[in-house]
């Protein structure tokens, strides 16, 4: 029994020694409160002898989670929770760790354990957001189906993206008037939407996808009803998850109706590749081909080719910011008969967006986008090659009333600048909507 005896003595000595260095846990806490999780993690690594002490494990676990070392973080928080199972804060952090690691069953169990203890509403709302995301990710493992209905309304300052000036100068025609339909027209509108999606795993990491949606924008103004929009879409595809990579291939059909007449039909195939670089960074690449047909305006029929990259970065900081950028190169190639290359164009799009969570149940988002369109040939009417620069600003606020019901307000400002007066327009769109998910 010499060994165990000495071990016990050693443990006592160790405990005594470590007690005299209680400062590291306090330092970790201070750094975490300052939002310096990476520094806290580095400090924790330099005090390996403190591992196993509850206070140290607690803060070290959070620091590891927040700085992208979720595996270490989960092990540290597990140590704490085993010792202090009634500490809801630690359990919530542990649940978050499981979530980050993708251990969804355990994440759900721990979140539910906290929920059963009736935490404050703000905490419940935070947990519900995680649970929503868990449900979304569980499509990898089990057959899932979700749906939504939406109702809302708003005001659109330019329902038809028309221009403000009723008379324009056309080199080949002189001064030309526009029909009333071509002029900027504002109207309030009713928004209706519904949709659903499903996922069915068929092999490890492989799932079949499908979904459909219908959305309508119905203008209030009697004149503007001719610009009522309806969008119907359906898609199917397959997703493959390998390691940190998600591949997705989809085929989709959609039609855009204007005044209940088919305006544009599209059939597209797309491929996406997303890599989860770490807990905070995701990169993506996508390719798309679409066949665009305009039943009432066949001169615009075209093939669309697109390729792009995106990056998404989440920060562990107040309001949990998530930043996203996207760049797209595209080409719309007219194939009407005869071909109208003045309607063919190259597109370059840049978009940046920021999402914030200022408080439980609340979400904020804002984004800027720019699209440069350069057409291929001179417009036969205007005798110049069309060039457009589109600038967009969007902002949104959402509030989740319950697990299923959310309210959302969105604002979009569009400004399309063109070297041809006919295509210049500005537009302000405000939408308020309620969404019920099931």
């Amino acid at each position, binding site marked *: *029994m010499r*060994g*165990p005896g000495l071990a*016990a003595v*050693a443990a006592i*000595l*160790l*405990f005594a*020694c470590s007690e005299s260095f209680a400062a590291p846990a306090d330092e970790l806490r201070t750094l975490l409160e300052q939002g310096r999780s990476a520094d806290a993690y580095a400090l924790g690594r330099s005090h*390996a*002898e403190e*591992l196993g002490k509850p*206070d140290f494990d607690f803060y070290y676990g959070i620091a590891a989670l927040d700085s992208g070392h979720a*595996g270490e973080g989960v*092990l540290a928080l*597990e140590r704490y929770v*085993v*010792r*202090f*199972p*009634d*500490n809801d*804060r630690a359990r*919530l*952090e542990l649940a*978050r760790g499981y979530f*980050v690691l*993708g251990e969804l*069953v355990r994440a759900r169990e721990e979140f539910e354990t906290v929920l059963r203890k009736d935490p404050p509403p*703000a905490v419940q709302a935070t947990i519900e957001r*995680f649970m929503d*995301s868990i449900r979304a990710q569980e*499509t*990898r*493992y089990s057959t899932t189906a979700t749906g939504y209905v939406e109702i809302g309304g708003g005001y659109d300052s330019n329902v*038809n993206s028309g221009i403000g000036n*009723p008379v324009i100068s056309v080199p080949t025609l*002189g*001064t*030309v008037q526009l*029909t009333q*339909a*071509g002029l900027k027209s504002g109207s309030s509108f009713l928004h209706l939407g519904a949709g659903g999606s499903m996922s069915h795993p068929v*092999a*490890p990491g492989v799932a079949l996808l499908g979904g459909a949606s219908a959305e309508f924008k119905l203008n209030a103004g009697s004149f503007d009803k001719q*610009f009522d929009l309806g969008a119907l879409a359906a898609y199917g595809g397959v997703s493959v998850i390998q390691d940190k990579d998600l591949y997705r291939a989809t085929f989709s059909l959609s039609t855009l109706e204007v005044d209940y007449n088919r305006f*544009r039909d599209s059939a597209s195939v797309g491929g*996406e590749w*997303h890599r*989860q670089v770490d807990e905070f960074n*995701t990169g993506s690449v996508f390719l798309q081909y679409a066949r665009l047909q*305009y039943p009432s*305006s066949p001169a*615009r029929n075209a093939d*669309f080719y*697109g390729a792009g990259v995106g990056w998404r970065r*989440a920060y*562990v900081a107040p309001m949990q910011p998530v930043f996203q950028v*996207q760049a797209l190169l595209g080409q719309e190639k007219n194939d009407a008969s005869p071909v109208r290359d003045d309607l063919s164009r190259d597109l370059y799009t840049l978009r940046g967006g920021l999402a914030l969570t200022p408080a439980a149940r609340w979400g904020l988002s804002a984004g800027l986008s720019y699209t440069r369109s350069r057409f291929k040939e001179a417009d036969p*009417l205007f005798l110049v090659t069309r060039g457009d620069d589109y600038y967009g600003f969007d902002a949104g606020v959402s509030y989740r009333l319950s697990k299923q019901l959310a309210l959302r307000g969105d604002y979009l400002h569009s400004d399309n600048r063109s070297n041809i007066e006919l295509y210049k327009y500005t537009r302000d769109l405000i939408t308020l909507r309620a969404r019920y998910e099931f």
Partner: protein
Amino acid sequence: MRSLIILLGLLSAPGLASAQAGRFLLAVGDVVVVRGQAEIRAATGTPVRSGDTIRVGPASNAQIRMTDESIVGLRPGTVFAIDAYEYSEQAEPRSIFSLLKGGFRTVTGAIGRLHNRERYAVRTPTATIGIRGTHYTVVHCDNDCGGADRGSISNGTYGGVTDGRIEVVNQTGEHEFAANTFFYVASAGTAPQNLIAPPNFLYDRLEGQARSRGNQGNESSETLARSGLNAESRSSEVPPPPQPSPFIVTEQRTSSGQPAVLAAASALGFTGAWTSATGDATSVTAFVSNEMLTRTGSGASQTLTAFNIPGTASGTALGPINQSGGFDPGDGSVNANWGVWAVGSITDGGTTRILEGAHYIFGNLTPPEVIATRTGTLSMISSGGTTPTINVVGSFVGAPTYPTLSLDFDMRSVRVGAFSWSFTVGTFSFPAGDGTIFVVPGRGAGVKASITGTFSSVPATAAMSGAFFGPAGNYLGVGIGVTSGAVSGQGVTIYTRAPGA
């Protein structure tokens, strides 16, 4: 401190036979280190050595941190052996474990990062696991994984890779599994199977916490809401693919490929004379497409019921249409028509107004290039039209009279002859005055003039405008509005060549 731990570890070793391989970070419940014949009850800080076997009882949990900084979390009901462990400068590093029962989660350390199966391996009853990564979980079931809430679970080894890759080797060969994959090995002679989802018993539920109920620790729950990496940051939520442009009306094309919103080539000249929303009588001339005028009838027998001229005015008749008339030289080249809306709603200048006595005249437009290239002079007289009306109680006295016009195409000018309109409430009188001929390329041509006169000795103005009709520009549809204070009147007429002109 580290050297102290090592020193104490060495001191506790039986016969100093082997160095400390690691220490317990957690030992809750029934956790025992079996070292030779000895069984040591483990606690936090208890060292472990190469050759030790760790036994974790029911409702118990343990974690060991090895000296290469790897951490192994042992679940309840586990028997885990450190078969051979070496991590020092004196020998080649190696880390060979055996999972005899139960399961563990591990985040590997320096030895694991060597990616060498000779250096790192975990033996299970069904396979040996090597690693190319850093984080995985393994459970071996031997009639101990099922239960009331889990149903019957097949015996064998189950695993899941959280990060990196692992190699599973048994009699069937070597099989590699990447992050986010799960596998099952039934026996040493059975190839591993991929699993779609992690078995629900794979991850430890920390049953050791049952021994610590009532412990809340020092950390407050007040900041619970702080928790939460943004749920939207997961990779499964991907940005939407590019979408085609939304509906833009000006990009609409006709079947001929032209912008659909361009008004059709002007086909008609339109002149209206009414008391505008601002109070003065006005004469409005526009070059319009057929669809801008809503009409009944045909040829020189048409009646206008509504019009919509973007940027100029729009209106709808709300009552009888009086004084309808028409003119054509007989070949359909002019088809001038006029009339008076007894009551109508007209929007001009952004304001809608219900008014009485709105006069109109329209006819086939003269191509603007005809007027632009025309030279010489032309004398014209009124050859029909409406009887002027007034906006106060009163009526026109006598036959309608419109001034003569003398056009000079070289000078693009028009001389308006003197004229007077007599109503029962007074007489508008205007001396001769001058106006202009105007041409809008691509659209049409017309005349306009503004003349100052009197209304029963009170100053008055006359606003006149009109459009050329007919292929040669020998006809004019003209409207005149006269105003004096709150009194206004208006009328329209068709002009033709003066006899002998």
